[in-house]
């Protein structure tokens, strides 16, 4: 088929970005960059401002202060029309077939008639919705409409693709299948991509980069592995699935989630724990986990630097730490 690859890659930058609803400050992002040509997972709990940030990037909302830039240009509806594809969390279709909905999207983007049909076929085939093309778009099942929604966004082959909870509302098999297919689809059709999710597993499977948004503020941003390995605070660690263990002196220890389906290269798992001056961990607390070794090293100088916990596990072991209980 060989449709052209997405146009020149674009980075997205937020500068001094603030957005308020009434008196409530919903977003406050002094600086943030979504790497060009990469898939970034925008993660955070419900109500953390993820979808609002997508709406600002797509000019559906105007910032209270600051600006969003795509490839150095401040976003405007015109720029969005040229550069952005957006799959909303709740798939929305106009009256008509799936094919006519995809066709409308391409027509609104002024894609020539000759090219539209091949683009529709290509995106539909890739997303597995070819048999649905002539079905009424508003009578699809949850999984089918999510795929059609995705196909419409991908068919645009926009330099920037925004996916808001692309796996929302799917049953477990449908979610598994789409989670499996999405990385391939994004490689094929998308360039700079932001995937909003509140599920860390989705983020880990889909993204190269990760931005953690909590309470309207960016708590962590960077490579997926980097963000995951070094959560900057307890709230971020908790969101990322870390088990937060309170210590006797009122501090916390964050233990990595699922810690490792331990495979060569995965162990020992090393984590810096900040904000804890005195760990206060009774070593025997760890003894219940067979085959796991934990060492805690406090740097010299009585805890002026963060302590380091080192966890080693046998290959293949799956460790699960539970919060609470006697330490």
């Amino acid at each position, binding site marked *: 088929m060989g449709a052209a690859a997405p146009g020149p890659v674009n980075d997205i930058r937020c500068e001094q970005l603030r957005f308020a609803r009434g008196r409530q400050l919903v977003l406050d992002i002094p600086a943030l960059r979504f790497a060009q040509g990469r898939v970034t997972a925008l993660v955070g709990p419900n109500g953390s401002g993820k979808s609002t940030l997508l709406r600002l990037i797509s000019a559906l909302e105007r910032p209270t202060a600051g600006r969003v830039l795509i490839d150095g240009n401040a976003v405007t509806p015109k720029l*969005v*029309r040229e550069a952005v*594809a*957006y799959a909303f969390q*709740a798939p929305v279709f106009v009256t008509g077939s799936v094919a006519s909905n995809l066709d409308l999207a391409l027509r*609104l*983007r002024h894609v020539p008639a000759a090219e539209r049909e091949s683009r529709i076929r290509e995106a539909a085939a890739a997303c597995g919705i070819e048999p649905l093309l002539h079905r009424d778009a508003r009578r699809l099942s949850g999984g089918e409409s999510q795929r059609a929604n995705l196909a419409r966004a991908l068919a645009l082959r926009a330099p920037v693709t925004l996916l808001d909870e692309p796996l929302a509302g799917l049953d477990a098999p449908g979610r598994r299948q789409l989670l499996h297919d999405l990385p391939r689809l994004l490689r094929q059709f998308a360039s700079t991509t932001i995937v909003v999710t509140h599920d860390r597993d989705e983020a880990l499977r889909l993204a190269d980069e990760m931005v953690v948004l909590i309470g309207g503020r960016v708590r962590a941003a960077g490579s997926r592995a980097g963000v995951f390995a070094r959560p900057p605070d307890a709230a971020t660690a908790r969101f990322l699935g870390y088990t937060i263990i309170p210590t006797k002196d009122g501090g916390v220890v964050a233990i990595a989630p699922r810690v490792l389906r331990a495979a060569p290269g995965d162990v020992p798992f090393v984590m810096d724990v900040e904000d804890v001056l005195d760990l206060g961990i009774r070593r025997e607390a760890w003894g219940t986990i067979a085959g796991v070794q934990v060492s805690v090293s406090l740097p010299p100088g009585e805890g002026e630097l963060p302590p380091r916990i080192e966890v080693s596990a046998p290959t293949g072991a799956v460790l699960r730490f539970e919060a609470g209980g006697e330490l």
Partner: protein
Amino acid sequence: MEAIWEGFREAIRLIATGDPELREIALRTVVVSGSATLLAMMVGVPTGYALARGRFPGRTLALGVVNTGMGVPPVVAGLVVWLLLVRSGPFGEMELIYTKRAMVIAQFLISLPLVVGFTTAAVQALPRELPDLLAVLGAGRLRTLWLIAREAQIGILAAVIAGFGSVISEVGASMTVGGNLRGETRVLTTAIVTETSRGQNANAMALGLLLTWVQQRRVR
């Protein structure tokens, strides 16, 4: 009972033979009420859309006015227009009182809240994300309005039907601002009142049948 049956037969005969006055009154009714509804649609559909989708100061007040307007008795609307258009009124110099145009204005004011209210409800029933989707895809303002109207067409059709139904069947406003002048401003409803008061049951029934027929035609 015999009188009713006799009147009904005479009514059928009048309609079947195409009584010229009857035909003229029916035509005038359709033109006046149709014009008022068309104007109400042109103003009411975009206004309904704006009230459904817009967020602007005074929106709640405007919705309140629309909801109130939907329940205002037509004769009251007629009275307001009469006060404005009567010779001693602020627009008396325009000499519109007791003309078809005055009736169109009154009927426009009666149907407008209905068209706005029903359109607002129809657009609000659409998915909230639809205008956003169209905006991101690049639809301009007019295109968006057109596509949204197409999605809400059943509701908007209901709005127009309700507007037309309300004005074609009202009598108070037409009587007040039109004056029920024979050959000038007499429409089906005011003619029914006149014929009934004159004891012309057959004529009244013929007019009633015609009015019912015209009103039913609007849904097709």
